[in-house]
């Protein structure tokens, strides 16, 4: 799941300081699940903005709507009839949703309400941890299901650096060394041979927007 966190209030406030009517659009999927951009957070942000602007003697009119997903055009359709009533749009979606929203309403300024943090897992209510950096070439099979890109501070593919310290990463005692964990797990599975060979340099191609077309879903070429 994509994990995001609310932008600092000051930053949001200053982005929309010149606008009098702003529509705050929540997103009902990932950012709602990670408690950053669903209905509740839209309400909280609007309340905050309303109060802050009143205090600044510059009242703002705020609208709100939360769509199922801002990264799907069908869900954005509901906004078509609304956006013209506003000077600007705040989006509580991840970077993808915000862009898709901005693309659809290219004539309106669109501002991010959250910072998209990472792809992660939910350890407990409100507690998320990064697990994937969407590197596009997964080596988890080799590393016992522990990602050397995300979990190692240096993203090393060929074992730990010299800073590995009794199972901890050199950057922090509480951060486990990914390669130590990989070794432990593979040893238990009797699969240490899978990390004995040198892994060649990664293919970091595709820094331009990457595309995935799931097999079986490709549209027929236009006749």
């Amino acid at each position, binding site marked *: 799941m994509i994990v995001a966190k609310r932008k*600092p*209030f*000051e930053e949001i406030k200053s982005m929309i300081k010149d606008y009098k009517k702003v529509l705050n659009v929540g997103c009902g999927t990932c950012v709602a699940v990670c408690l950053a951009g669903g209905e*509740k957070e839209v*309400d*909280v942000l609007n*309340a*905050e903005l*309303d*109060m*802050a602007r*009143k*205090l600044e003697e510059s*009242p703002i009119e705020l609208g709100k709507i939360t769509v199922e997903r801002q990264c799907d055009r069908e869900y954005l359709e509901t906004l078509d009839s609304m956006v013209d009533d506003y000077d600007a749009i705040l989006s509580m979606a991840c970077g993808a949703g915000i862009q898709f929203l901005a693309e659809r309403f290219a004539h309106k300024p669109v501002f991010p309400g959250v910072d998209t943090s990472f792809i992660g897992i939910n350890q407990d209510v409100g507690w998320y941890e990064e697990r994937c950096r969407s590197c596009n070439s997964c080596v988890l099979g080799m590393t016992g299901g522990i990602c050397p890109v995300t979990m190692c501070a240096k993203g090393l593919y060929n074992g730990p650096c010299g800073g590995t310290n009794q199972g901890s990463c050199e950057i922090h005692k509480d951060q486990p060394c990914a390669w130590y964990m990989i070794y432990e797990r593979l040893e238990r599975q009797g699969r240490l041979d899978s990390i004995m060979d040198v892994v060649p340099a990664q293919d970091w191609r595709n820094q331009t927007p990457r595309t995935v077309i799931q097999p079986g879903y490709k549209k027929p070429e236009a006749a």
Partner: protein
Amino acid sequence: MRLEYPGNVKIIRVPCTGKVDVMHLLRAIQKGADGVYCVGCLEGTCHYNEGNFRCRERVNHVRMLLEEVGLESDRVRMYNLSSGEGPTFAAYAKEMTEHIKGLGPNPLKNK
């Protein structure tokens, strides 16, 4: 027990402070209340196990939000007492009122 406490305190009943939402507290301040406080059971004695701890967390969250907005975080507080402590309730009502008087009226009032 007929213990005097300030008349500006008005009570909204909830089944448990665990029900109190961040938005309820924010809304009160947004609409111009000078202060809001939650009165929960003593910590460790919540009938529903931990509702009052959750409320404390939310009160802290709202305090942080108020600070962001530029309002005094101390307009929102949490108190704990048991149901038999009428005098303590009155004492907290007084304390909160005195405290809010010190902060002055909510600048959002009539805005």
